[in-house]
């Protein structure tokens, strides 16, 4: 396959090749020839454009902020969000895995009758942080835009107290996101 144009993905912005093709095939540029099929530029372009279209089809979806469902282990059935993904693995884990922050205990249903103290108690979220194999996750079409990159890091799983502080911070951020009422799907328990 040909070299990728400076690492840019074609879907995000027009690549140099596509811009050049548009430039040469515009009628104002070539007033003499009606069709630009005989132009030396266009003979090379269609093949490269086809290759770029093929490249544009592949989309990586296991990216940070993706909402996933954990399928195996103690947290099976829980919803989580990918914080950091290791596609090629590390030396300790030679498979594709990612760092997820998920919900251990979902917030209960809050009704209008509840007092302020009761809503505060019902809106509590218990979190977990875990490294999970890609095979044990089900990706979804939802995303959760919570900034967890600075609190949940690869080394926060080394010791127990680091893990606890990371969970406490994610708990705080999840709770404030729950209270705004956004991402309602993420905070509802998956029924199965």
């Amino acid at each position, binding site marked *: 396959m040909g070299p990728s144009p400076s690492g840019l993905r074609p879907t995000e912005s027009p690549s140099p090749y596509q811009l050049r093709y548009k430039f040469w095939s515009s009628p104002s540029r070539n007033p003499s020839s009606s069709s630009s099929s005989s132009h030396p530029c266009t003979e090379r372009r269609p093949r490269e454009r*086809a290759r770029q279209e*093929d490249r544009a*089809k*592949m*989309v*990586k*979806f*296991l990216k940070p902020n993706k909402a996933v469902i954990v399928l195996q282990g103690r947290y099976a059935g829980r919803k989580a969000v990918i914080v950091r993904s290791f*596609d090629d693995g590390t030396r300790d884990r030679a498979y*594709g895995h990612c760092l997820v922050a998920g919900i251990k205990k979902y917030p209960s249903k809050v009704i209008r009758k509840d007092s302020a103290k009761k809503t505060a108690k019902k809106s509590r979220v218990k979190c977990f942080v875990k490294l999970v194999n*890609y*095979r044990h996750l*089900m*990706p979804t*079409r939802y995303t959760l835009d919570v900034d967890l990159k600075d609190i949940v890091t690869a080394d926060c799983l080394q010791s127990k107290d680091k893990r606890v502080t990371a969970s406490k911070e994610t708990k705080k951020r999840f709770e404030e996101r729950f209270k705004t009422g956004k991402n309602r799907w993420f905070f509802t328990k998956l029924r199965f």
Partner: protein
Amino acid sequence: MVAAKKTKKTHESINNRLALVMKSGKYTLGYKTVLKSLRSSKGKLIIIANNCPPLRKSEIEYYAMLAKVGVHHYNGNNVDLGTACGKYYRVCCLSIIDPGDSDIIKSVPGDH
């Protein structure tokens, strides 16, 4: 969506294209590797046999939807798909990573 009755001609052409991919391109056979190719965004076309269990079929289609990869429902069961691949075993789903000389990627995903 009711699919129109697949004519023999198009069915044969898919088989021919698949044979060319088997000869010249890169592919993986089987559910586990299909999901692996979708996760790493290497797969370009997924072909599923018609007797694939519906839960597995929906799962592969969902992954393909996330990865924006075409899915083709093969007009035959896993035995037929295995034969079309030139293998002596059953193939329920396969993923084409590199079509080689074949034009299967461009011509086939007319149906989804």
